[in-house]
């Protein structure tokens, strides 16, 4: 059916001038050219879309994902689309798999910017202590004052408030599997990184209650203890091997007093080659090992009664005589004070370590109360493990990379992905789909315009 406009423009209409037919012909030819142009444009755009769909699936725009959509987005970015740039926003619990996936995308020529909302800079390291009781030392780093909860496979281990220096250290026994430290939804995890070879401990000194109860404490802890205790001018009480004192045999040597010890002259070589040495009471005064000691035994401080506010342990130690450590070397570290006197100090000497205790007759601490027995044992075990030479036997397979250890999630993520960048709020989803929609609309409009023009001028 002819439309009204084409009917009104029918040839031979009344009042139509001859010149107007020329003008109409010119308009019609221009119109036809426009129609052809629109047709060609639509065809070209269709061809372009066809070429795009047949070629590599690389979107042209930047894509982004929030924590909820990130898992699905990672799959899509790796299989369906390959955006040239992505913005990934994660929560405070940035899973290692997510981090590594983003790093892999970055390695595959995708520009990755990321932001982990609430991810705290914390770190956790777990290492074995030279202690046959299976002690693990956990080293924590976080913002000063942060409260951290420690867990292992069996539940909560402890809670720790990080000190002003930004670090904390605790020792614990019987860890099950990996251990995690959690602070405000950010979790660092670690596994014990190896097994130590624990050799024997040698106790040297005069036979007496001190040497006997030191041996008891260390044996109860699980150490194999050898002894060379002087009993008479030509009679030593020996237990265990009688070979030379070296790191192939002994993890540590404990000297309980300054009695004439023939073996003392070999201790310097032992320590300088990596051995551990514990000097108790007056032992540090012996000329042969004086140069190894952190300090010099001072004048006797007699036992004192329990002071106000003293804990039971403090009071028990206060009942011991003390040779305060004076003249501390510049490289010595104070480990324990009693009042204003240095009671325990340590230093490195060559490849080995030396710890010096000024307490006398520590056995009285053990004998005093039932509580003292365990405390005395733990204290002596701590002194020995602080210096013991304990080479790594092998690295536990669970500690190899990728076996559940994420020691410092924020630092590791920054190392893998670069510095954290803020993701700007904006529409989510692929930018390429918008472009395709605009193209589709343009094609439809071009075809509609061409069709309308043809119909209005009466063409078919």
């Amino acid at each position, binding site marked *: 059916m002819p439309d009204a406009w084409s009917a009104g423009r029918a040839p031979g209409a009344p009042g139509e001038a001859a010149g107007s037919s020329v003008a109409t012909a010119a308009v019609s030819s221009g119109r036809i050219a426009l129609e052809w142009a629109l047709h060609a444009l639509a065809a070209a755009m269709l061809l372009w879309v066809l070429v795009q769909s047949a070629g590599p699936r690389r979107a042209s725009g930047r894509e982004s994902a929030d924590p909820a959509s990130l898992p699905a987005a990672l799959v899509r970015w790796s299989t369906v689309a390959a955006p040239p740039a992505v913005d990934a926003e994660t929560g405070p619990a940035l899973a290692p798999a997510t981090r590594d996936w983003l790093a892999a995308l970055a390695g595959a020529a995708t520009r990755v910017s990321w932001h982990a909302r609430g991810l705290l800079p914390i770190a956790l390291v777990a290492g074995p202590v030279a202690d046959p009781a299976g002690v693990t030392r956990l080293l924590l780093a976080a913002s000063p004052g942060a409260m951290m909860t420690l867990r292992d496979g069996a539940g909560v281990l402890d809670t720790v408030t990080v000190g002003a220096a930004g670090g904390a250290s605790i020792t614990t026994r019987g860890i099950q599997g990996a251990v995690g430290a959690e602070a405000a939804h950010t979790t660092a995890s670690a596994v014990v990184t190896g097994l130590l070879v624990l050799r024997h401990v040698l106790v040297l*000194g*005069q*036979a*007496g*209650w*001190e*040497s*006997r*109860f030191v041996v*008891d404490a260390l044996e109860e802890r699980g150490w194999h203890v050898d*002894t060379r*205790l*002087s*009993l*008479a*001018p030509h*009679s030593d*009480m020996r237990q265990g091997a009688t070979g030379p004192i070296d790191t192939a045999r002994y993890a540590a040597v404990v000297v*309980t*007093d300054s*009695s004439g010890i023939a073996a003392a002259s070999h201790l310097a070589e032992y320590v300088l080659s990596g051995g551990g040495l514990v000097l108790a*009471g*007056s032992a540090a005064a012996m000329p042969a090992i004086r140069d190894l000691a952190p300090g010099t035994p001072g004048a006797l401080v007699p036992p004192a009664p329990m002071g106000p506010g003293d804990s039971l342990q403090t009071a028990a130690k206060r009942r011991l005589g003390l040779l305060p450590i004076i003249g501390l070397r510049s490289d010595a570290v104070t480990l324990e004070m009693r009042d204003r006197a240095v009671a325990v100090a340590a230093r490195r000497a060559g490849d080995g370590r030396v710890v010096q205790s000024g307490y*006398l*007759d520590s*056995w*009285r601490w*053990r*004998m*005093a109360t*039932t509580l*003292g*027995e365990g405390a005395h044992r733990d204290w002596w075990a701590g002194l020995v493990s602080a210096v013991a030479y304990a080479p790594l036997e092998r690295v536990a397979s669970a500690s190899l990379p990728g076996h559940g250890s994420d020691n410092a999630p924020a630092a590791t993520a920054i190392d893998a992905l670069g510095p954290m960048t803020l993701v700007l709020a904006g529409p989510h989803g692929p930018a390429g789909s918008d472009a395709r929609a605009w193209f589709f609309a343009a094609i439809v409009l071009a075809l509609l315009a061409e069709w309308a023009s043809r119909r209005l001028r009466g063409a078919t």
Partner: protein
Amino acid sequence: MSQFVFATGQYESGDWDAAPLVPANLIDSVARYTSLDVAPVGVVVPLASAAISDYPLIYLTGHLPFRLTDRERANVRGFIDRGGMLFIDDHNHDIGGIFHKTATEEITRTVGPLVDVPASHRLYSCFFRFPDGPPATSHELNGWGDNIVHSHLQAVMQGDVIQVLYSSKDYSSEWGYHPESKRFNSVDNTKFGVNIIVYALTR
């Protein structure tokens, strides 16, 4: 380092001070044969006192019934648990005597059962050597008391470690003389006492 102090235990029942010369004699022997730093005078420590923890080896003897009070019993239990050692000697040398019957019953009740100490135990070789086990006393050889030469001492043991050493041999009579008289003996009969002390200090 503190000196070794020989301690005699005082208990409320019986005659705990029946052998007053034994401490001085053993102190003399320890000083004579070893380089241990030993206090020249012994002490008496009540078993009910917390002071027993200052003396990880305590010597007990007597002729009369041996009964511990509840406080003494609790104190002795803690003392043993923390590493102390008791040396108890029957001054009667009579396994049918009242001290033996009551003391062995009390030890069993307080610490644990007594067993024979084998002659191979380190107690007999830690300083002087006694390959045949405990040396016999003149009272055993003379037929006094129960008229038995006891071949073994007894002990409450934890593994191989002696916690309570019990003697039916009456060393309290054997060693109960003034140290000055030791020079008249052809053989010093207190040497085994030195072994007991050295064992306690090095076990």
